[in-house]
């Protein structure tokens, strides 16, 4: 009932505002002497109105907007305190744990949908000649698979697991800006809906990169797509800002920078990346939108513009974006490997240095996506060097992971298996990256299936495996229930084998002359594509096991202990699931989070005052 009110209210005001926006745009246009109706222009204004209406409708008005006009606001925490059961996940709620679950489940749904689109792509590519879908549908499916998976990779770990775990791991009771946190989540559903509607609005022609002039000339749903992605970028920036401030100011006493868990470090660096670079995508798409709806000439060579401007601005974001994707994967992998090897994390300081090094280098490597784009010759060398430099900090992550498992006591539960798979997969993705960083080899490999295989190895193999490591690792904490270990291991091996067969073989057609984003290819590539398609279907099927295990365990899994992994970090020192205020007593940090088996090591956390007989809800005070 509550949930229906929230969603219904949001949809109602959103739609009304959308139509209002259409009208306002038409009015303005006729006032200034244009035709009253221009689909892309009017719809853009309508989208902005609709977005604001939606946000106000789902609860931002009551808990936030009224304040701007000096009126009393509703208590934003009312929803977290009420006993609402599952309905609280469908409501405006400022509790970071609820927002984390909202993010996680939303993006798992998007992940499954985008995965289904990958199955369509592989079905089309099973055979060189036959058309399973038309070229138009193929391009739409391809573009949607790309952008939805990018969205998942950017937000599933950061928004989902990051929101859930980071405040818990640093001993905070919430994020620094809880209402802004809720805002960044509630910006996501309109984006998802707009993206999913794009096949009905004219399809997508440009892939997820949206290179002009094609994205300016195309008659497809490009403008809606731009607006949706700009909105998503806004959500990502606000989320990043929130994480940076949270980690800077909300740490518990004694939680020095040298004692932060690796996952928190990775989220901190990721948040900086999101805050610093996401604007690039937004600016690039704003330029495309202006070219489309206002007839401007940023990318029109005939009128003095330059199409390459887009690529520079776009990759200025989209290369750092791959670190937004991969660093949380590394963070989870190191976190899990640390706890499940039962020994201190090897070379902790070097691993932190690696994160910071990647943050520093990420802004100066973007043009390696443009080695064949006709950029001036003098740019090739510097970008080659900068790109290769990235492999040095990345090597330190491997040092830390391998050093930690060496001579450890590996407890091979599912999270650990996924974390080890991250290291395995990324080793392959990293080595194939060398070929793409060196300009001479990149000339041939650019825009082929070699690139496709490479980035699936890094992003799926690195981040998505990390995402699943995190999901299994924190599942007992989030749900208060234990997942089924046998099914989880089945999921792991099925996914691991399916993934590696699919994408390892995919390098081969790339080298043999198969380029990206095509629906048909020369006959000589048929065998390779058939194998890839078949194993891709196998990979796709593995997620059915996951869905079954996830849903079934959440509904009726056995109750989980507070600390089923015997881990030292803070989030395991409170109940599963944690109370609304996270910790009943304020935590004080005294030791390093990974000091397993170190003689005389202080415990990572103690609670003050000691946890006896204190009344529930006594989270206030202190500090």
């Amino acid at each position, binding site marked *: 009932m509550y949930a229906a009110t929230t969603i219904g209210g949001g949809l109602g005001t959103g739609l009304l505002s959308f139509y209002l926006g259409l009208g306002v745009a038409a009015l303005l246009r006729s006032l200034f002497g244009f035709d009253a109706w221009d689909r892309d222009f009017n719809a853009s204004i309508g989208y902005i109105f609709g977005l604001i209406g939606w946000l106000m409708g789902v609860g931002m008005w009551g808990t936030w907007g009224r304040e701007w006009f000096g009126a009393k606001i509703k208590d934003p925490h009312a929803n977290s305190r009420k006993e609402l059961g599952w309905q609280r996940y469908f409501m405006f709620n400022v509790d970071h744990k609820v927002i984390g679950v909202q993010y996680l489940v939303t993006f798992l749904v998007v992940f499954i949908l985008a995965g289904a689109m990958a199955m369509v792509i592989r079905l089309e590519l099973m055979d060189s000649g036959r058309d399973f879908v038309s070229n138009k549908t193929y391009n739409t499916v391809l573009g949607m698979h790309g952008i939805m998976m990018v969205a998942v990779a950017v937000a599933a770990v950061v928004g989902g697991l990051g929101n859930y775990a980071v405040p818990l791991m640093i001993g905070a009771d919430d994020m620094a800006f809880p209402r802004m946190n809720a805002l960044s989540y509630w910006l996501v559903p309109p984006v998802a809906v707009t993206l999913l509607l794009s096949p009905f609005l004219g399809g997508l022609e440009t892939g997820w990169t949206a290179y002009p002039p094609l994205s300016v000339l195309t008659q497809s749903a490009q403008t809606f797509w731009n607006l949706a992605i700009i909105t998503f970028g806004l959500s990502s920036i606000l989320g990043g800002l929130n994480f940076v401030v949270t980690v800077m100011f909300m740490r518990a006493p004694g939680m020095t920078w040298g004692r932060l868990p690796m996952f928190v470090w990775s989220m901190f660096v990721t948040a900086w990346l999101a*805050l610093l670079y996401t604007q690039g995508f937004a600016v690039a798409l704003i330029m495309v939108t202006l070219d489309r709806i206002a007839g401007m000439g940023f990318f029109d060579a005939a009128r*003095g513009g330059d199409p390459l401007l887009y690529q520079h601005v776009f990759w200025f974001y989209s290369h750092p974006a791959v670190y937004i994707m991969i660093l949380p994967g590394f963070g989870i992998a190191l976190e899990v490997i640390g706890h499940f090897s039962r020994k201190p994390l090897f070379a902790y300081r070097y691993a932190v240095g690696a994160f910071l090094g990647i943050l520093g280098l990420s802004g100066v490597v973007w043009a390696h996506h443009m080695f064949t784009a006709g950029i001036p010759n003098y740019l090739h060398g510097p970008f080659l060097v900068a790109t290769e430099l990235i492999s040095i900090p990345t090597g330190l992550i491997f040092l830390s992971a391998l050093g930690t498992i060496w001579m450890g006591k590996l407890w091979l539960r599912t999270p650990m298996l996924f974390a080890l798979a991250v290291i395995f997969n990324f080793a392959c993705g990293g080595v194939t990256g060398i070929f793409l960083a060196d300009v001479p080899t990149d000339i041939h490999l650019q825009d082929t299936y070699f690139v496709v295989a490479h980035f699936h190895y890094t992003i799926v193999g690195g981040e998505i495996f990390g995402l699943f490591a995190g999901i299994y690792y924190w599942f007992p904490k989030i749900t208060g229930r234990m997942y089924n270990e046998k099914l989880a291991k089945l999921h792991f091996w099925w996914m691991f084998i399916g993934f590696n067969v699919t994408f390892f073989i995919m390098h081969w057609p790339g080298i043999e002359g198969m380029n990206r984003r095509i629906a048909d290819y020369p006959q000589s590539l048929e065998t390779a594509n058939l194998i890839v398609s078949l194993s891709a279907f196998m990979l796709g099927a593995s997620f059915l096991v996951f869905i079954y295990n996830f849903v079934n365990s959440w509904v009726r899994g056995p109750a989980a202990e507070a600390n089923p992994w015997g881990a030292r970090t803070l989030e395991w020192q409170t109940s599963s699931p944690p109370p609304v205020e996270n910790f009943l007593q304020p935590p004080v940090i005294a030791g390093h989070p990974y000091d397993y088996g170190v003689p005389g090591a202080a415990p990572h956390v103690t609670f003050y005052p000691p946890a006896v007989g204190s009344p529930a809800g006594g989270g206030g005070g202190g500090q």
Partner: protein
Amino acid sequence: MAVIAAHGAQTHGAGHMSPAKRLQVNRVGLWLFFFSESIIFGLLFTSRFFLLGTHQEHVDQFLGLVITIVLLASSVTAYTAETAMEKGNRKLAAWSLFATILLGVVFAIGVGFEWSVAEFGIKTAVEGQDPHNVVWGTVFFSMTGLHAAHVVSGVLMLGLALMMLLRGHFSKDSHWGISSTIMYWHFVDVVWVFYYPALYLVAGGGTHTG
């Protein structure tokens, strides 16, 4: 946007944070937001030089100077408003906020006037002029347009702040709502500090160079 950062959070966590710390967190959050925005402005700024070098079409440089001075004057009144608030002088603060809003509106009108007399378009090159005409128009209108959008939103936020002040909100010790909108206003001024020379002065005395 500053409103969002401005009002920050009053959480159950507020119990864990002193008001001074809350203020510091809000302030750093707002600065990070400025940082993030300045990259949007910076990318457009860089695009202007990427596309045109230091080329510049004819613009009314004197008009540019006048609106720049107007914006600077509005910064002074904004500063007065915040300082008055810190000293607890609500009346002076209200009048200064009002003056700031007025000057902001004058600036926006100035930009609108500049647009209406511009000697370049975005659709097609003007007959007999440099072919850079269109892309210059593109760059000029999008840069000043983005900045003007921030000015207008700043005026709206200042208006809300003034309204709240008149209704008796804010005090000497608690006026983050006013401080944050005024910081946002100064930030808009900072952007103009770069945009004004890039659009009006780079090519010197109205000559066509580059």
